[in-house]
């Protein structure tokens, strides 16, 4: 079986996505047991390479591998040979000597997964590369939606609000949401909206006038550096909060709020939403574990439905 990478949501068909989400659902009972571990990937080796800061993604990949009984190895840029100037190609060659089955990588540069994949026999899973893609975040977002809003996501109306320009989450989500038949509207200040993004098949708006149309509101983090002098993406966080910040007063009943974290209270999200049980933010984190178990599992045993993981559980 040729190795299968997961670098972009574009690598997945609708059937692949459905299969991954079904697989994730089948892992949920494992996570509710006292002994939260199955022997499915015993003897397999999974390496986590995080060349950029991460809490949620790195911890959930690590835990997902352990829940499946795989052997894991975690490396970060600080304290590794990267600090000595080793190239990604050489890191890939070095780690490949251990014959890993999967290398999960987060990297600051778009294209890093291609470089890694070209230099290893292991399957590569993208845990975020530059502003390019974060496919596993998209899959866990889809899973959260499916578990909370019903299995049928066709026609669901999603507003993605925030810094679209710098967001790999937005790019993966747009692709994934559209692939599952949702209607996607992007809302951002014009300076943070990538030119030409509407060609992906989304609506583009610069204010929240039509927010009432949304079933789900997906907020993106606004980084402090966007207001640095000279950057001129935003005049102030205060004005951003005023124009785009999500508050309970802006929502109508039934609208659900999502956020990939970490959140900036008082900027893109008000505390009255952040602390509310109605939002899906904590559920997204929980979904991350089941979904990443499913991704690791499918990457190793294959994406065909008949791979029969029922017996192996």
């Amino acid at each position, binding site marked *: 079986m040729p190795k299968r990478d997961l670098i972009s949501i574009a690598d997945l068909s609708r059937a692949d996505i459905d299969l991954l989400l079904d697989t994730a659902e089948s892992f949920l009972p494992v996570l509710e047991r006292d002994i939260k571990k199955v022997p499915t990937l015993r003897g397999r080796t999974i390496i986590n390479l995080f060349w950029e800061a991460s809490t949620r993604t790195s911890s959930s990949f690590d835990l997902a591998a352990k829940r499946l009984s795989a052997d894991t190895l975690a490396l970060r840029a600080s304290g590794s040979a990267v600090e000595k100037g080793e190239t*990604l190609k050489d890191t890939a060659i070095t780690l490949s000597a251990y014959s890993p089955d999967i290398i999960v990588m987060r990297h600051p*540069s*778009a294209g890093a997964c291609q*470089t890694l994949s070209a230099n290893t026999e292991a399957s590569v899973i993208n845990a975020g590369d530059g502003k*390019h893609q974060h496919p596993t975040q998209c899959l866990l977002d889809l899973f959260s939606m499916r578990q909370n809003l019903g299995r049928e996501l066709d026609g669901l109306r999603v507003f993605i609000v925030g810094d679209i320009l710098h967001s790999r989450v937005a790019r993966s989500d747009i692709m994934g949401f559209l692939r599952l038949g949702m209607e996607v509207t992007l809302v951002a200040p014009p300076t943070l909206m990538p*030119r030409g993004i509407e060609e*992906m098949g989304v609506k583009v708006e610069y204010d929240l006038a039509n927010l009432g149309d949304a079933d789900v509101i997906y907020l993106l983090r606004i980084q402090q550096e966007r207001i640095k002098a000279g950057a001129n993406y935003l005049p102030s966080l205060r004005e951003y909060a005023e124009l785009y910040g999500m508050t309970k007063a802006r929502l109508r009943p039934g609208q659900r709020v999502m956020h990939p974290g970490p959140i900036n209270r008082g900027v893109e999200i008000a505390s009255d939403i952040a602390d509310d049980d109605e939002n899906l933010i904590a559920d997204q984190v929980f979904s991350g574990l089941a979904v990443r178990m499913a991704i690791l599992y499918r990457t190793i045993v294959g994406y065909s439905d008949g791979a029969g993981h029922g017996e192996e559980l």
Partner: protein
Amino acid sequence: MERTWCKRLPAADLLIKGGRVVDPQEGIDAILDVRVHQGVVAEIGTDLAAGDGAPLVDAGERLVLPGFVDLHTHLRAPGREDEEDIASGTRAAAAGGYVAVFGMANTDPAIDTAAMLRGFADDASATALVPAGSYAAVTRGLAGQQLTEMGELGAAGAVGFSDDGMPLATAALVRRALQYVKVSGRYVAIHAQDESLFKGGQMHESPVSARLGLTGIPSLCESLDVSRALDIAEYEDAALHICHVSTAASLAAIARAKAAGVRVTAEATPHHLTLNDELIESLDPNLKMNPPLRAESDRRALVAALKSGLVDCVATDHAPHASEEKDVPFEEAPFGCIGLETAFSALYGDLVVGGALDLATLVRRMSSAPARIAGLEAPAVKVGAPANLCVIDPVAAWIPSRDTLRSRSCNSAWLGKTLTARVSLTLAAGRVAWDLNA
């Protein structure tokens, strides 16, 4: 005025039999034999007798064309001989059918004094397989501050002046350069780029960059700087050459300037004429260049401009990079791709075979037009002219690879792809510079 230098190889004696000779300058497109005697085209005709024991080249089913001239090559010497030097760069040129190339001045140190240029000339005289010349920098060390001694550099043989790789940052600097270049009788070639719009750019700003999350380089970044330089060239009545034009907006500005009588010439690269930004989807670092591959609409506009002559010539922007520099994630890779060996193949295969351009026009744009800008006698298949010609198999398929490329670097946009048309023989300055079968 000597503007190119090359190694003194033995003069060629050959009889090239039965090729389709296409030389639009001479009004030739016919199956003919060409006899080269002591490096000079001695006879052109049908059924020429072998005689005098000179080797016979069977050019049946092949093209015999005037050799090509490249106004934009990076020979990387001095400073980065691990990527290319005059010997390897001119070997690549010969393999691509080129009979003269001009290196850019952004070497390390830069070619910014007559002494540096004489050093280049000495090196080329000892090692160049085809005649090689050089630009000199516009500013010392390409630092954008103080002009170079253009009078002395022009007298020492600089083909023109360019800080290529770097834009000229201010209007005042462009103006001074265009004023002072007149002491040399040569021209200023600009790499048009508005730095404030370029910052952090990775690829053409387009729906593709939006989808990929790569910082865009807007077409404005080039066309604004082109327009500014054209206005200054008009005001100063100075000779300006625009390097590697890549956008329809720049072409519109150049068309207006030419109509107004501005002394401007322009070049376009084979990659901008045949490839577009959709290909960046692969995140292949060999497709990362500056200016970036643009939209398909820009590419089509460039092809139309090459056809009409609005773009005067093809230039490769041959930019060798070491594999360890290019074998990194797209966002970390340096800009540039090599192009000497693939230029004719890519353009012939895509544009001539594809029907967008006739062969005679392509030959003009690669041969006589750049020669005229450089101030060289145009390569010609003409009795009495030095042999500057190439023989090309127009149906041969080949794959650029580390093994087939003669450049010291292999960062080709066509690496591993199949190209049509291969140069089998190049005679430059009367010498055999390339023989595929040797």
